[in-house]
């Protein structure tokens, strides 16, 4: 090939078509492939053989960090760095430290969740071969694509194309890298 190719892209019109095609591609043992859908299609993860997302683990770390930040900040500022008697309350108590720690837990969880999601998805990535596909607009709208990357060890232009055709893919074309 003259221009390096990113992979093959096939179009599907309905969710069931995509779903079944994905099952086939999965069963064919491909690893570097993807579905492009305008909305999260329920059950497609399973059809693609995706594992459960690890975002929750990152979130949990964020949450724990937030709570500890809150508690330790309040303890350090109030009881260690500058102890002041305020309203006869103790210098530190987890009770009054709780609301702020709680909020920080949530804040840090949110940061971790979003950051984790973006990180796992490799976003932001404003340039991507798929986005160069001329019909990509429909992929955000009402069509479904299935992309198999050339770097997949099983990728073979002819066989892969055949697989996609067999799975019901239309307009199968190559994507520029």
């Amino acid at each position, binding site marked *: 090939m003259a221009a390096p190719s990113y992979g093959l892209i096939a179009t599907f019109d309905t969710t069931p078509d995509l779903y079944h095609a994905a099952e086939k591609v999965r069963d064919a043992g491909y690893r570097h492939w993807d579905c492009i859908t305008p909305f999260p*299609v329920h059950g497609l993860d399973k059809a693609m053989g995706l594992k459960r997302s690890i975002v*929750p683990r990152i979130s949990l770390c964020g949450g724990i960090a937030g709570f500890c930040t809150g508690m330790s900040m309040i303890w350090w500022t109030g009881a260690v760095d500058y102890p002041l008697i305020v309203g006869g309350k103790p210098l530190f108590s987890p009770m009054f430290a709780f609301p702020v720690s709680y909020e920080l837990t949530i804040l840090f969880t949110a940061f971790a969740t979003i950051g984790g999601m973006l990180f796992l998805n490799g976003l932001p990535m404003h340039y991507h071969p798929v986005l160069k596909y001329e019909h990509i607009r429909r992929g955000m709208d009402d069509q479904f694509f299935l992309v198999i990357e050339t770097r997949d060890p099983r990728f073979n232009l002819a066989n892969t194309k055949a697989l996609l055709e067999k799975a019901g893919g239309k307009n199968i074309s190559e994507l520029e890298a």
Partner: protein
Amino acid sequence: MAHAEHAATPPAILQEVKPAVLPRAVMVANNRSFSWITEKICGIIEGKTPTWWWVCFILACLVASFTVAGIAYLIATGVGVWGHANPVNWAWDIVNFVFWIGIGHAGTLISAILCLLRQKWRTSINRAAEAMTIFAVVCAGIFPVFHVGRVWYAWYLFPIPNSNAIWQNFRSPLEWDVFAVSTYGTVSVLFWYVGLLPDLAVLRDRFYASGNKLRSALYGFFALGWRGSNRHWSNYEMAYLILAGISTPLVLSVHTIVSFDFAVSLLPGWHTTIFPPYFVAGAIFSGFGMVLTLMLPLRAIYRMEDLITQYHIDCMCKITLATGTIVGYAYAMEFFIAWYGANPYEGFAFINRAFGHYAWAYWIMISCNVITPQFFWFKAVRENTSFVWILSIFVNVGMWFERFVIIVTSLARDFLPSSWGYYSPSIVEIFTFFGTFGVFSVLFLLFIRFLPIMPMAELKAVTPQADVHGGGDHH
């Protein structure tokens, strides 16, 4: 929210009871296609700016200028330009703050709690409701920030290391508020933004196709290169669920903490353990009131009866009814506790609310918040959109008065009769408050003009044809 997999055998108890199978409501009516949804929603943004929008926008800017002018005058002159005085040191400022923050709760609630509860009807309204949350938090934030005597030292509220070596008092509910409100604002924006990602990608591609590269680039920048990859969707869905999961306790905690501003004090009428649930219910109540107030006209203008169906309105009316009744219960309970607690100061505070100098405010509150929602028992009322809209306005008014009653009447007549006083607002306060409706409107108008007012991806996901098993009813 892949729940197709959960449909194992129902629990034994359900088999015994045999619950009635309720018909599933249609979320998007008239069996619309995916592209219809896209066209409908993006069309609002892509189409020519309607004249009414300009009229409203200019009007809203004018109104918003009241707030700007009021705040500028306040900073230049001092808090004295408001009607505050001993003993009423908080009045409209905090009333407005609680009012707006309460309104802000519906958005997150619709997005998050209903998301967790898998209430699919939320999809058509959650985007706008979230936007409403953010704008309401902006309006709410104005008041606590500028009500302080020396706003230029407001940074003292944040734990920034400084040469005075002094920190914040984390025992103060106000300090909790700082964290709660800023967390709430931040998380709401993030939640909203995450939800917007796929829709921004749609707009990016559509504007590129129509040749408007500048707008395409703008939307594209914020779309972060979203490409609808299912591998992304997988993480995205999980993240969204978690955000919904944490937003739910957040939304509850925020108004709980706002209520702590009062509950933690020792003032009769404020010092009440019932406040957190009462405030949260009130916030949801006022939030749904505001959602109705905003969505009903929007629905009519943009002809979105197919997206915001009667079922949606019905649901919101019912929630309003439920929370309104909770609020009514709380009003009654406050009286009961005051009597049962046998503290003469508490007792007087409540009698005074209902029969003292501010009784007018109390009865406005009661009639708007307790009586108004009772109309929603009737289906005919719920189906009469104009009537629902009018009632929703009453709810908004009533909830503002609730905060006024709590804050001002308790302060005006507290422990020592020698300090009793009467508060009335100054013109500056009145204008500043009404200006915030302008601020809100400006932001909301910008939102409906430039961003998709409904989550297209989510809407598509709840259409029958989105189902991988061939559309129609699940299972």
